[in-house]
């Protein structure tokens, strides 16, 4: 079979993947730098698969439409960018507690506040550590190429339904706007299967299905929490994804996710040209996080440099993983500024190489 190769913008590739994966509905609200997703879907989706695409009046409405449609057992998706995702947090907490599968996309822009439309990774804490109220986890995927913007939509729905858990694709404005070659998977038919828990109308043959997150008695609510925590532990056992390149012989390892990991790849090339052995470790799932793998890597390497487009968020997890074995340094750019390969190399030289020579 011929591969279907296209040159696509990250946002449009992600939208195309949503159609092809057999998504039943998308609810969203325009915000830069991700409005192309809603635009592409309103243009393409309904005619091709009958997928519902609705521009809601706000991100708050969007996420609650997702809650309703996900509760009906359908494959549903929404996307937004940082301020819009902040508005959705209450709904995300409900969805996580009610254990409804769905795919959420955050095309992150620089914050805080209204911020900038330039790329950022400032929403790591919000996405990975909570965001909304209560103890819950999202499964978090961090694509670094336009190809992964496609692949993670498919993977996201698989994980969402496997675990009955919301999945967040955490990407950024640059990946949303840039164009790359993508290989598209063939159209998957929308399913008519109805999950047993879905609210679709109660036949005589079963008890009624209730989707709720309200359990007034503390013991019952603790039981729900224990169940969720057990599920999260299982996800941690089974679903960790990461990419380690050039780490086997590396003296220094750059730890980064998403787009920044690719900038670090370039740095590693430049470093090796200078005779400095640098590797790159890229967590692909941010929850579950590859703590053990990083810990093992710390036995071999002399130092880690975490690079992020924020003030230092994932670096806390890297330090937890390394647990003091080796120094973990940090380089961060904020508010939409993207670090360059050269300045990362310079930081390696300043923080590590200089000291060792």
């Amino acid at each position: 079979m011929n591969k279907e190769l296209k040159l696509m913008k990250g946002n449009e590739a992600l939208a195309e993947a949503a159609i092809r994966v057999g998504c039943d509905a998308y609810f969203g609200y325009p915000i830069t730098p991700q409005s192309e997703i809603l635009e592409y879907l309103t243009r393409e989706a309904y005619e091709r698969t009958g997928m519902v695409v609705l521009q809601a009046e706000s991100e708050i409405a969007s996420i609650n439409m997702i809650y309703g449609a996900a509760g009906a057992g359908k494959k549903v998706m929404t996307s937004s960018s940082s301020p819009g995702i902040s508005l959705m947090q209450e709904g995300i907490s409900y969805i996580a507690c009610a254990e409804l599968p769905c795919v959420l996309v955050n095309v992150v822009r620089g914050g805080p506040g209204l911020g900038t439309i330039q790329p950022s990774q400032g929403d790591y804490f919000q996405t990975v550590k909570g965001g909304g109220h209560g103890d819950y986890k999202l499964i978090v995927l961090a694509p670094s190429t336009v190809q992964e913007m496609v692949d993670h939509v498919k993977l996201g729905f698989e994980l969402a339904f496997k675990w009955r858990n919301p999945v967040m694709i955490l990407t950024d404005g640059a990946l949303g706007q840039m164009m790359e070659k993508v290989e598209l998977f063939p159209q998957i038919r929308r399913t008519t299967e109805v999950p047993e828990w879905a609210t679709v109308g109660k036949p005589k043959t079963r008890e009624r299905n209730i989707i709720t997150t309200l359990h007034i008695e503390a013991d019952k609510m603790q039981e729900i929490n224990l169940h969720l925590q057990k599920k999260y532990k299982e996800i941690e056992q089974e679903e960790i994804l990461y990419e380690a390149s050039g780490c086997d012989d590396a003296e220094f390892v750059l730890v980064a996710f998403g787009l920044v990991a690719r900038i670090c790849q370039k740095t590693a090339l430049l470093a090796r040209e200078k005779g400095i052995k640098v590797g790159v470790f890229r967590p692909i799932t941010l929850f579950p996080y590859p703590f053990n793998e990083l810990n093992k890597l710390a036995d071999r390497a002399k130092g880690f440099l975490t690079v992020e487009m924020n003030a230092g968020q994932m670096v806390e997890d890297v330090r937890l993983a390394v647990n003091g074995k080796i120094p973990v340094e940090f380089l961060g750019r904020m508010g939409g500024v993207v670090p360059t390969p050269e300045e990362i190399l310079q930081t390696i030289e300043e923080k590590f190489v200089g000291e060792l020579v």
Partner: protein
Amino acid sequence: MNEKRMTEEQHFEEMIAEESICIADNLVFEKPETLLDTPMHYCPGCGHGVAHRLIAEAIDELGIQDKTIGVAPVGCSVLAYQYLNIDMSEAAHGRASAVATGIKRVLPDKYVFSYQGDGDLAAIGTGETLHTCNRGENILIIFINNGIYGMTGGQMAPTTLPGMKSTTTPFGRDVKIMGNPLKITEMIAQLPGVYYCTRVAVNSPVNVRKAKKAILNGFKYQDHKKGLSFVEIVSNCPSNWKMNPVESNKWMEENMFPFYTLGDMKVPNLNLPSESKGE
């Protein structure tokens, strides 16, 4: 001990004797199938119980129990799903109509309704209410207006009357400070997306019958696929109004009804040729 057993046997015989008159022909009142046999948590005299029963009766009469999905709000009726034997979803505060939109859009041939109080629908959820109605979603919104926040203990609602006391308007609602009560149903009726809009009450047998008719319409009109049905039920809150049930009904008739006038605000003209063709 023997004596006690005798007593129980006698009691059993009495029950059998009673049962003999409990035959179908003699029944004048029965529980709708869609209403579960769960004791309700509502205060004595509250209108919610009657409204729930009417929904259950309407679903039974239309035979749509297996095709109906309800959405409960946050407020006193947050547990509405405990009383109705249908698939239901509990929504975040104010978002019931967005949740109902999500369900209806992916299940367009099912019957979907939201059940919301005045705080939920007309304060925190005003945006969702307005836009759901404006889009003309083919759903039924049932709006319980008792002019107060019941569940949180009697604070001012958007529909609290001028001068009316609540825990956050201890000297009565001063419209200069708190603004005027919001007649959201009148606003909603203006929107082209709204197909049917009416205000009813459940304080008397006549009004209960009218309310039932309105709810039946709200379900039936979903078949027309021509827009949203909005049924406001003006209701009471004996506990937070600090009255007994009889007083609260009287107060409602004397104070709420003049401000929130009962009656249809928008009805589909089913005689028009374009309307009667249907889908």
